[in-house]
């Protein structure tokens, strides 16, 4: 090799020869770094596994039927249950769905149909809202609802309404994004066919696109439920917690009379119960916290599995 040719490129030549010449060193570095990745993965997976292991083992050890059927027992915590918290969580999720579903799905449809900078801004802000910490949503609902109400009539304010409102605000951006995703998967030819037959846009959406994407939309709803079911921080500020079942009120509807839970009273929820029992000094309550946590996770898992199932059946249909 002549050195004259290489003179102007000394640097790159050095780098090149270093790279080619030191094969053993390069292989050593390769093995070292890949090994470190495996070690990192090992540490990460081990810690994650430990979380699951303790939840499953401790939760199963203290699981009992009483948990599902009884109220908390102040005298003998061991014999008590968390039935009111389970009921409360379901009520809160129902309430959250009632107002988050229509807004979320309609907003998702808008994000599918609309184009241009404004629609992109809407998408972006949806993601931003999605990233706001849940405790901020909690203090927000406290500031606009619970606090003003409790100032004007003491003892009121903390309620299923307030809790469901907080959870619903968290669900809206989630449902919007997943709905849009799912509607986007419907082949454009389907819509073209419908529009070509003279159907209006809303008719196309209602009779063609939505029925095809139904499973996917349900998936989005389930995932958002799974996410908010375990939220504790917003509930701290909105539902207060309670040791009893929600009170019932009779209603007459189309000649039938039955009773429904009252929505404007404090209520309990599973995550709140876990927090309360875990932070307390009582060993029996600590143990019940593990079982309650397992119930809560099972609930979250049921939603997640339902989500996968809904998408799967939808794809198979196609």
């Amino acid at each position, binding site marked *: 090799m002549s050195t004259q040719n290489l003179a102007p490129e000394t640097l790159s030549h050095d780098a090149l020869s270093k790279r080619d010449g030191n094969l053993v060193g390069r292989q050593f*570095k390769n093995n070292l770094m890949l090994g470190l990745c495996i070690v990192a993965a090992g540490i990460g997976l081990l810690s994650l596994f430990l979380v699951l292991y303790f939840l499953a083992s401790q939760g199963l050890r203290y699981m009992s039927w009483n948990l599902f059927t009884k109220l908390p027992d102040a005298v003998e915590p061991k014999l008590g249950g968390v039935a009111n918290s389970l009921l409360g969580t379901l009520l809160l999720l129902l309430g959250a769905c009632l107002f988050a579903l229509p807004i979320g799905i309609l907003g998702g449809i*808008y994000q599918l149909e609309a184009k241009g900078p404004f629609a992109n801004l809407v998408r972006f802000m949806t993601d931003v809202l999605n990233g706001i910490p849940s405790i901020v949503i909690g203090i927000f609902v406290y500031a606009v609802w619970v606090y003003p109400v409790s100032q004007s009539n003491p003892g009121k304010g903390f309620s299923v309404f307030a809790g469901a409102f907080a959870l619903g605000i968290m669900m809206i951006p989630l449902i919007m994004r997943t709905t849009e995703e799912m509607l986007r998967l419907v082949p454009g030819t389907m819509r073209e066919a419908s529009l070509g037959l003279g159907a209006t846009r809303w008719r196309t959406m209602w009779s063609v696109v939505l029925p095809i994407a139904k499973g996917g939309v349900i998936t989005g709803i389930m995932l958002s439920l799974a996410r908010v079911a375990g939220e504790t921080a917003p509930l701290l500020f909105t539902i207060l917690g309670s040791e009893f079942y929600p009170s019932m009120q009779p209603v007459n509807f189309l000649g039938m009379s039955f009773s429904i839970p009252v929505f404007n009273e404090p209520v309990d929820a599973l995550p709140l119960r*876990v927090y309360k029992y875990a932070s307390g000094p009582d060993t029996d309550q600590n143990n019940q916290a*593990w079982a309650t946590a397992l119930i*809560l996770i099972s609930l979250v*898992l049921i939603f997640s599995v339902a989500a996968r199932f809904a998408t799967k059946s939808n794809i198979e249909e196609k």
Partner: protein
Amino acid sequence: MSEQAPQREITNMTPYLSAAIEDEVPGPPLSSSSGSIGDKIYGAITFLASLTIFVIIIWIASSLGWQSLPVFKQFGFSYITGSVWDDGQKQFGILPYIFGTLYSSFIALLIAVPISLGTAIFLSEMAPPWIRTPVTFLVELLAAIPSVVYGLWGIFVLLPFLRQYVMEPIGASPLGKFPLFSGFTAGPSMLAAGVILAIMILPFITAVSRDILRAIPRAQREASYGLGSTKWEAISQVVLPFARSGIIGAVILGLGRAFGETMAVTMVIGNQSPQTPSGVSFSLFEPGYTMSSALANKFTEASAGLNTAALVGIGFILFFVAIIVNILARTLVYYTARDVQGGK
């Protein structure tokens, strides 16, 4: 030409990536369709529904700002720089809480970023499918576990472990003389908060970075192998630079979660300001407060008026930090994903 983008599944992570990876709607431009009354109503209703997003964000900002106005008026900047929170003396300063949030998140990132990056590289570049599939499932499962449950685990598993195997041995050894390890060895501490945060954001950062790594076209790697590089050289010189801003975005998203995380931290951090004049201590073993844990704790004993305003003020600051962090991270993830898609 390269392989197709990997088949997307709907997972818990979807909301974080969806903005980035979206295709144009196939189909006719709908705006040009005939203006029937039904379509006008349809357009108006869906438009109104999407406006809710703006209404909610503006409503949150304005109501939190309005309710916390008294405390900003009275204390001004010393609300942020003050270290005393005393309802009796009507003194409200949140410096220790801000510090606690930053410090615990910093510890969490220090632990979580190397581990989750290693795990993401392992999952996307090295693991055979029979490992990848169950591990991916495990990681997603853990991302779905509520934070209060992590807190429970923290109290009864992590705290005793740290006390027995980390804090007491270090406290007893000469290392205990260092300011970094001074203080009690009881368990609840900044260290515990940092570790539990790390465990919580680990699945999250791992999942998002793995998705980004997997989205990088295989041709890029093959070109690098073709030039004779080792696997690590292909990863470090081709794949990682390609994914860099996306991974930074994933880390910032994780940071955003750590900032706002409440329950798990509240349960292990001790909720007590360090006994220093400034209320700030760099010791890992001292208990502390974060902004959100202070909110969750002090809320129960807050009296109406200035005290409540001071609490809402914390929420107001958290809200703005979250908005900034999120806009930053999502912009990064968005542009990386767009570049990756454009590059195939």
